[in-house]
């Protein structure tokens, strides 16, 4: 493997002809955006081989998370001869050539993917597992049953609401760790009723998030009134002043805000909540609408949609309040600030404040880590003071892992669990 394999892989990824749907990470490399837009050729990508084993990467702006990002599979090297020989078939078992700890032995969609230890891996001496079976299971209940019947050593997620019962049964085999991911209600700031920031603030202020995570969800989620999760580098969440107030004061203040915005008992605020059909979204929606009705007299309506229809509704801005959430693409605050940046692909709330954008850009261009963090925190604070969303909680990684699976840690907020770190303890 040489630097040529990286250059080929990256130029192939940004080539519009490849039509890759996931180009967020490569976009940090110089000229990538222009190449993706078709205005520059792939050969202009800011990457150059200094020799066969040294790569020079130029980025559009200082990118402190670049080294961490390099371990993401979308930036992995690709072996050119197999792509040229097999075309679309290059990823199939027997064709795929990689440089990882395992090689692909079997792959059948919806059935399983089997990888076996790669004896040629540079650190093969420290890889313990000989075979890993990856079983795609859509349904978390089915996966949990397979764990319970002794078929699986690890599951991906717990079924919603099952944490307490599984914890009682399996104890330390239930793992919970903060994840770089949040759950919020997007507020369409272009909506006639929600364009008033006082209304948006009132809606966020009265929600009892502790009750939501402890009584309604109960799967270890962390309450949050900020966009930024705790488990992300480059910024930290800022609590709102009212979070420390007693609920009575919060309700009284929120009522004043609504009254100032022109709403009263005679003229109540009406809210339409759109969500994609899942039990959790419905449950959370019922709770939040009941909070708004009981505390502010807001008339709420729920509207469920099938996933693809819902995604279109949110992108088109034909909603008032919508279920939303974000898992960081990479471990840095800027992936979350993308949600409030003007006209960003990830911004569905229509919120736009040039001052926030300026702070994000200033922070992104800053090479001093402390100054960068301070600027990004300021950007988050300014955006969140205008309430383009109602943050509710931070998601957690919750899964079952057999006690005899060694090497498993809950440390990575991006939830990457490399199989080469795992081993089976004699049992």
């Amino acid at each position: 493997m040489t630097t040529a394999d990286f250059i080929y892989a990256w130029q192939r990824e940004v080539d519009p002809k490849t039509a890759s749907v996931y180009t967020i990470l490569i976009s940090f490399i110089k000229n990538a955006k222009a190449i993706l837009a078709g205005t520059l050729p792939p050969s202009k990508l800011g990457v150059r081989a200094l020799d066969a084993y040294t790569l020079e990467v130029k980025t559009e702006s200082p990118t402190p998370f670049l080294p961490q990002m390099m371990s993401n599979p979308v930036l992995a090297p690709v072996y050119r001869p197999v792509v040229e020989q097999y075309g679309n078939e290059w990823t199939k078992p027997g064709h795929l050539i990689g440089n990882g700890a395992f090689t692909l032995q079997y792959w059948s969609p919806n059935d399983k993917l089997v990888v076996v230890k790669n004896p040629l891996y540079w650190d093969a001496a420290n890889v313990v597992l000989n075979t890993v079976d990856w079983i795609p299971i859509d349904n978390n209940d089915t996966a949990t049953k397979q764990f319970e019947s002794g078929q699986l050593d690890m599951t991906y997620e717990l079924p919603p609401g099952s944490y307490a019962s599984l914890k009682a049964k399996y104890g330390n085999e239930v793992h919970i760790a903060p994840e770089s991911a949040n759950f919020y209600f997007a507020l369409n700031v272009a909506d006639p009723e929600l364009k008033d920031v006082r209304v948006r603030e009132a809606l966020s202020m009265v929600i009892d998030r502790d009750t939501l995570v402890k009584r309604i969800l109960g799967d270890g989620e962390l309450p949050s009134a900020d966009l930024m999760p705790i488990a992300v580098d480059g910024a930290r969440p800022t609590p709102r002043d009212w979070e420390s107030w007693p609920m009575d004061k919060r309700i009284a203040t929120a009522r004043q805000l609504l009254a100032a915005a022109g709403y009263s008992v005679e003229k109540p605020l009406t809210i339409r909540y759109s969500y994609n059909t899942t039990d959790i979204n419905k449950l959370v929606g019922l709770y939040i609408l009941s909070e708004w009705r009981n505390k502010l007299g807001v008339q709420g309506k729920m509207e469920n949609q099938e996933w693809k229809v819902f995604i279109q509704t949110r992108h088109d801005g034909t909603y008032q309040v919508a279920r939303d959430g974000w898992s960081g693409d990479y471990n840095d605050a800027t992936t979350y600030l993308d949600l409030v940046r003007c006209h960003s692909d990830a911004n569905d709330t229509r919120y736009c404040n040039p001052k926030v954008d300026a702070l994000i850009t200033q922070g992104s261009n800053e090479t001093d880590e402390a100054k960068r963090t301070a600027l990004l925190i300021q950007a988050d604070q300014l955006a969140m003071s205008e309430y383009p969303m109602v943050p509710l909680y931070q998601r957690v990684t919750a899964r079952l892992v057999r006690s005899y699976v060694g090497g498993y840690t809950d440390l990575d907020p991006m939830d990457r669990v490399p199989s080469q770190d795992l081993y089976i303890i004699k049992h």
Partner: protein
Amino acid sequence: MFAYTIRRLLFAVPTILAVVTICYVMVHMTPGGPFDLERKLPPAVLANLQAKYHLDESPLQQYFYYLGRLLHGDLGASFKYTDWTVNELVAKALPVSLAVGGLSVPISMVIGIAIGTVAAVRRNSAVDYLVSALGNVGNAVPSFVRGAVVFLVFALLLQDSHGVGLLPAGGWGGWRFRVLPITLLTIVNVATISRVMRGSLLEVLTSSFIRTARAKGLPERTVILRHAMRPALMPVLSLFTSIALSSITAAIVTETVFSLPGLGQLIINGAINRDYTLVLGLVVLVTAIAVLFNLIVDLLYAVVDPRIRY
């Protein structure tokens, strides 16, 4: 009968074409598309993707492009399973569905006809009530509840010393993985078949020709097996196509409960992901199977009922 078979097979072509056309229109009218993702795609990437899958052409051009490929036996590339063609996906899923649903159908037919017959012959006896009760349970209890019960017994309660269940709770592999899904599908099929068989045989047994057979002094066994069974099988045969289709191509709940990599999973995922080619490909397959089964059933009618001749 040969000419009839050929005629029917030729007639299958416009049938499949009509179904594909209707489905094509419906699929493209459904809101949301394959590239509507959580994060909006940049316009240049979206344009390239649409060009790759011919979505940038007019609906009519796309339709004829699809038909052209279909005539060559090519169901196209999947939108979601991007490394796979629909032909490859079907080739992997069909054997799984045949191994589960395909095996359940003959087993259900044999058991259903047998117990339906016993229930009719021993009408109003304890056996009859037992068959009716089991039939009602089989029909009334949803698959996911039956699935949970068999899982509890065979995968969770009956475990060896290492905590491994007697039978797997899902997934795909050797015969052990097939027992529970086949059993579940068979229960519901047997419930339906036995009920229809019982009712049909009871009706036949009141016919004049049965009275004549009995009057001739034939033993009851001969009356039932030689004279009553064949006409009584007609309604059961009519059921065959719908049971076979639902067991093989649309055992969606069973496949989800047991996480089987069969056609049902593909149908669900195809619809959720707006995987146009996958959905259309599966529709073509299901229609072809339906046409084939209907033909087989019609030919069997002639075997069972001497009055029918083609």
